């Protein structure tokens, strides 16, 4: 009884911002299936590609087939006369000179013209048209005559700053001033080291390969533009569209109902969306523009390739003394990030560090944020380097990592709200059977060698304002959740509905979650940086708490009892002293008269002087066939500190999904450009660009968690989990390959061919 009183007191507190994390949640933390699972798997969910509007036209884009060329002449006459064609836009139109703004996280770069006559990547947009059917649109594209002057191309970061190379922009090939970070005294650190290692690592350009390609449907009603796009960031796209089209922000509405995978590549305004809007304006008809698979490989984003030179030193006792990390990354033809080195400065407690990131342009599709951008590449190098050091001093790699777990953020000195990295390593190693697996080695005659490897990871997330969420409760006990977070497939809608259910005590089935829509949902941060739960769970909770406060006030008036003596359970008002006499909401006359109660919530500000980060350790077991170079991942185990696990099913999906991507990054995924002649991408299809299939993923996959009971990070006690799961997988696999074969593979992906060549080189060297 006492306890109920206390909690009802806290619940009726007017200050919804200062909620403590739940102590005994009944909905949050349960493995509940997705609220939109049925819609997604049955096909009844309407993705933008499914949308059919009356009189809708279909658009297609003419793209430059060369990696670097000037459009000398463009003749659209024949295309214009082709059956069904309704409008064409190209560099000949004033709209062709429109400049697409960079997303907020890219500080600056050369102007991105909608149709630039100087084409800097294969697939660059040259013109576009809309026709009655998609087939007519594609047929008409073929009638467009373009005269290109081909320019010599630049494909590799290593060549970008050499004299005599083609210049992509008149500012040169350097994206921004190299970013350098330094702490301590590097020379002194290397001097103190008992062992030193030096190595160069390379990662390949990886494509997001979302199942759903990029799509936009645009419709004008007078001067009002509505755009349906699968996006993580409705407000980012709204702002960019309004700026580009010189419209009031309120004249642009962006709707993101369902997203068929994103991983970062659907978080900014893309040219195709603007093109759909322009063609719709020209024709005064709705226009759909869906990119093909090939287009999405060429120009819808990627994880940029990196060349990373590392030097590191450690003492015999396993403490890191110095780390030098120099990265050269190729962003593609326009500015984004291709950093990697800076991440390493925050990973381990190492007193002497120097990192440098240099980013350059090349003639290829532009990079975009990609699940753990920079961090995944950085980990490929750093986590292997840590293994090399451990190997050199004869220390177990888990123990070596434990030695260097930082107490505070190594770069800023700020403490974390919680950090369970140590426990992740220990619990993970124990469950994996690490010590035993480390010593068991296959007999030397067997061509199949087994090995195990580990890598750890960290991901900083920022929650906090600005974001506004509205929860509406109806007298029948049902509720609507109105928020701008698009569910990119991660389960955001499910988790937020669970928060409402937890707070209001109503069943999940009675909660409807609105789609992200700038026309109906309030401003909210985009889904990115793994922060959806951190931003939205506290906001939704605050909004629900606001509803509850108002509801209990109404009930208090009607039942003539103070609000603190009332609580909300199973959708009913329960007097704390007479729990046997609950009252249905529909019996509250005042509520019925008001028709609904709307509660508003914002995420409270971030805790001051504290950092919020998630941590994890992953363990991999591989089999390497030294005759063919084939590598099989036979076991993966992850142990993560993600704060409170809001829903074990969605949490596990994030980690498993991340690990599957990590397998691809480690073993098969790679954009291949034709170096010798054309400079074009030769595997812009799912046949030759290989993401892991079900059979490439080990059956034996496990995800363990450690809940730090973080009361400081936010009122949900949860940290981010969307990206971190993919960060350590690839280096854990590479470390396992080393353990199996004694060969350090520095270049991702570890194709069977590369593996075999390295094995052969070693045989020759012996």
């Amino acid at each position, binding site marked *: 009884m006492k306890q109920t009183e206390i909690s009802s007191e806290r619940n009726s507190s007017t200050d919804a911002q200062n909620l403590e994390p739940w102590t005994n949640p009944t909905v949050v933390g349960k493995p509940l299936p997705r609220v939109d699972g049925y819609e997604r798997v049955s096909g009844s969910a309407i993705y933008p590609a499914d949308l059919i509007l009356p009189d809708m036209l279909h658009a297609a884009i003419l793209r430059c087939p060369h990696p670097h060329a000037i459009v000398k002449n463009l003749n659209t006459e024949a295309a214009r006369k082709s059956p069904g064609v309704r409008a064409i836009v190209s560099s000949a139109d004033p709209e062709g000179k429109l400049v697409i703004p960079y997303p907020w996280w890219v500080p600056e770069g050369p102007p991105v013209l909608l149709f630039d006559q100087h084409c800097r990547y294969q697939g660059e947009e040259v013109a576009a048209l809309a026709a009655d059917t998609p087939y007519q649109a594609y047929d008409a594209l073929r009638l467009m005559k373009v005269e290109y002057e081909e320019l010599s191309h630049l494909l590799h970061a290593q060549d970008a700053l050499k004299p005599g190379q083609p210049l992509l922009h008149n500012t040169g090939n350097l994206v921004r001033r190299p970013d350098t970070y330094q702490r301590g005294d590097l020379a002194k650190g290397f001097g103190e080291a008992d062992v030193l290692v030096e190595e160069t690592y390379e990662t390949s350009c990886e494509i997001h390969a979302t199942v759903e390609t990029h799509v936009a449907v645009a419709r004008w009603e007078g001067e009002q533009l509505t755009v349906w796009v699968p996006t993580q960031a409705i407000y980012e796209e709204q702002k960019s569209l309004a700026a580009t089209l010189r419209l009031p922000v309120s004249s642009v509405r962006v709707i993101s109902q369902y997203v068929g995978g994103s991983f970062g590549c659907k978080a900014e305004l893309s040219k195709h969306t603007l093109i759909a809007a322009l063609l719709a304006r020209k024709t005064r008809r709705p226009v759909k523009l869906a990119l093909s698979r090939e287009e999405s490989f060429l120009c819808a984003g990627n994880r940029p390739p990196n060349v990373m030179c590392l030097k590191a030193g450690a003492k015999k006792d396993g403490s890191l003394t110095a780390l030098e990390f120099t990265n050269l990354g190729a962003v593609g033809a326009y500015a984004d990030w291709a950093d990697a080195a800076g991440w390493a400065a925050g990973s381990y407690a190492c007193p002497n560090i120097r990192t440098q990131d240099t980013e350059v342009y090349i003639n290829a599709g532009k990079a975009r944020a990609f699940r753990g951008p920079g961090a995944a590449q950085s980990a490929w190098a750093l986590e292997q380097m840590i293994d090399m050091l451990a190997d050199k001093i004869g220390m177990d790699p888990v123990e070596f990592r434990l030695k260097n777990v930082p107490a505070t953020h190594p770069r800023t000195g700020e403490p974390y709200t919680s950090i369970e990295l140590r426990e992740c390593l220990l619990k993970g190693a124990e469950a994996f059977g690490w010590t035993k697996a480390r010593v068991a080695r296959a007999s030397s005659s067997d061509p199949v060698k087994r090995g195990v490897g580990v890598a750890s990871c960290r991901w900083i997330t920022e929650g906090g304002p600005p974001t506004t969420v509205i929860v509406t409760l109806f007298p029948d006990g049902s509720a609507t959740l109105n928020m701008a977070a698009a569910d990119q497939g991660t389960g955001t809608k499910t988790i937020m509905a669970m928060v409402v259910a937890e707070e209001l005590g109503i069943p999940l089935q009675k909660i409807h979650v609105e789609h992200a829509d700038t026309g109906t949902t309030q401003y909210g941060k985009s889904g990115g940086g793994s922060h959806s739960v951190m931003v939205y769970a506290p906001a939704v909770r605050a909004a629900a708490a606001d509803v509850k406060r108002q509801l209990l006030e109404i009930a208090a008036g009607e039942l003539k009892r103070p609000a603190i003596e009332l609580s909300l359970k199973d959708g009913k008002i329960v007097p704390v002293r007479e729990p046997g006499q609950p009252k249905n909401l529909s019996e509250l006359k005042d509520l019925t008269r008001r028709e609904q109660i709307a509660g508003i919530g914002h995420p409270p500000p971030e805790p001051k002087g504290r950092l919020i980060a998630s941590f994890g350790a992953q363990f991999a077991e591989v089999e390497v066939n030294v005759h*063919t170079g084939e590598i099989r991942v036979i076991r993966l185990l992850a142990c993560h500190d993600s704060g409170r696990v809001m829903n074990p099913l969605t949490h596990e999906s994030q980690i498993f999904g991340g690990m599957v991507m990590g397998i691809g990054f480690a073993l*098969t995924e790679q954009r291949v450009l034709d170096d010798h002649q054309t400079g074009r991408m030769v595997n812009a299809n799912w046949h*030759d660009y290989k993401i*892991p*299939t079900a*059979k*490439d993923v080990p059956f034996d996959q496990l995800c363990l968690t450690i809940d730090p009971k973080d009361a400081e990070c936010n009122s949900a006690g949860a940290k981010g989990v969307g990206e971190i799961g993919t960060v350590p997988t690839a280096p854990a696999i590479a470390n396992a390959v080393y353990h199996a074969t004694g060969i350090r593979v520095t270049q991702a992906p570890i194709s*069977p*061919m590369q593996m075999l060549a390295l094995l052969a080189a070693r045989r020759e060297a012996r």
Partner: protein
Amino acid sequence: MYLRPTTLDQAVDALEHHRAQVLAGGTDFYPALGERLPSTPVVDITAVAELKGISVHETFFRIGGLTTWSELLAAQLPPCFDALKSAAREIGGVQIQNRGTVAGNLCNASPAADSVPPLLALDAEVELVSIGGRRGVLLADFIVGSRKTLRRADELLTAVIVPRVVENARSVFLKLGARRYLVISIAMVAIVLAVDEQRRIRDIRIAVGSCSARAQRLRELEQFLTGRPAQARLDALVMPEHVKSLSPIDDVRATAAYRSDAALILVRRALQMCAS
């Protein structure tokens, strides 16, 4: 023009008179077209019942050209077909196996066509029919190069004939790709191995695909192994010179050097599996 005849006579008639292309499961046909439309009339043969099914005759098996990989997998066949079945299981995913046909795989004649090595190892013959009549051609002769066959434009591949010579021989198919499935072979090997009462190799056929413009039998190696005891460590007898007749190329999937190495390893591995 799109035609869908229901009898073989109508089908060959249509081919003769319309200079048409044949469409079976379409799993090679449409990807090859990309976004283009077919430039000639199309004869869809999927309604021609005479082209379907597998039958057993006194001296041969007859596999109808329209037999899909899923149908082949479901059929009761002796062990010498195990290699072909393994290949069928690795052709694309289940959806592709439900549509893709034996004739389509052979007529498309990709160097990486998975059914070709197992069928070469079975000494298969293809049956071609036109309004002019019927002829049989050994598969080894039928495919003349990368995507080139002896089929005349007016002919249909109606069946694959497999002689009943090595029915109870063991057979193995191994394929190497960049991932576990849904993958175009970097190299593949099929072996059919029959032994006599003393467990000596009586008849051995070894075929390698994806390592030359068309899949090849390794005749010298076959001769070299014939008569030897089928025992453990048979693989140790296979030397790099035994795969010298292959002429792999560099492409996006693998380098020539890797293909040669892989072919050698696969031959050894397959031999070991057949012999043990």
